[in-house]
């Protein structure tokens, strides 16, 4: 019995090692910018700080969030962020009450508009925060989305 457990343990360990080495094979040039510490953060402020090095953001009416008042399918909540500013550099979507709030970060080069639309999973009723970097400054807006049936399942 003990031997069996031991074998199971080593097998699991082996699987982790394989996964880790697979991770190392990811071309670093592609993933260099993926903000891991922001995605790993468990709190909104920690995520923003990990991304931007500060938590001070200016609430702006020029950042518009289009999201449903009530999400019927919590695994697919359509979020659209439309920023009425020039020189938007990035848009991030943060779901405050998710286990890991930081959901997505979009990089916007010159010539691309401050607009993005995507679908996200929501664990429960939460504020959805749009964090926008424009002209080196951070702006934000938030909107509450009610989730009627829980579950982050897919």
């Amino acid at each position, binding site marked *: 019995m003990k031997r069996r457990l031991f074998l199971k343990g080593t097998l699991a360990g082996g699987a982790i090692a394989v*996964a880790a080495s*697979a*991770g190392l*094979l*990811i*071309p670093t040039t*592609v*993933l260099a*910018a*993926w*903000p891991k510490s922001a*995605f790993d953060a468990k709190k909104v402020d920690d995520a923003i700080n990990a991304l931007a090095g500060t938590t001070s953001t200016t609430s702006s009416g020029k950042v518009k969030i289009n999201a449903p008042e009530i999400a019927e399918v919590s*695994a*697919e*909540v*359509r979020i659209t962020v439309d920023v009425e500013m020039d020189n938007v550099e990035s848009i991030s979507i943060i*779901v405050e009450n*998710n*286990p*890991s709030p*930081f*959901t*997505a*970060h*979009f*990089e*916007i*080069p010159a*010539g*691309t*508009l401050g*607009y*993005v*639309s*995507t*679908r*996200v*999973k929501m664990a429960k009723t939460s504020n959805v925060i749009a964090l926008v970097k424009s002209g080196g400054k951070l702006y934000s807006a938030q909107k509450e989305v009610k989730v009627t049936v829980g579950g*982050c*399942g*897919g």
Partner: protein
Amino acid sequence: MANGILIRSKVSGGETLVRTSMKHPMETGLRKDQKTGKKIPPHFIQVAKFEHNGKVVFTANLGPAVSKNPYVSFKFKGGNKGDTIKVSWVDNKGKSASNEDKIR
């Protein structure tokens, strides 16, 4: 469609709207397999790059909370009918896929 990436782009009023969906399970790592009770390891697209005629016009850094088969749409200035839009992604296991389509 073998790579599971759908691209629809349309020019109007000097702006191109690109809509894409990428086939991917987007596992959070929090879900349990109902048969074995074991946690399903996280498996999600991390970075998706969008190019217009070879120039990057949008980069999406995604986490596991983005819905299954991620949908992303964005707009850029310019673009003409017949131009190429290329989408390529890489996930947390190092797998990648890409596809391209013309602006209609």
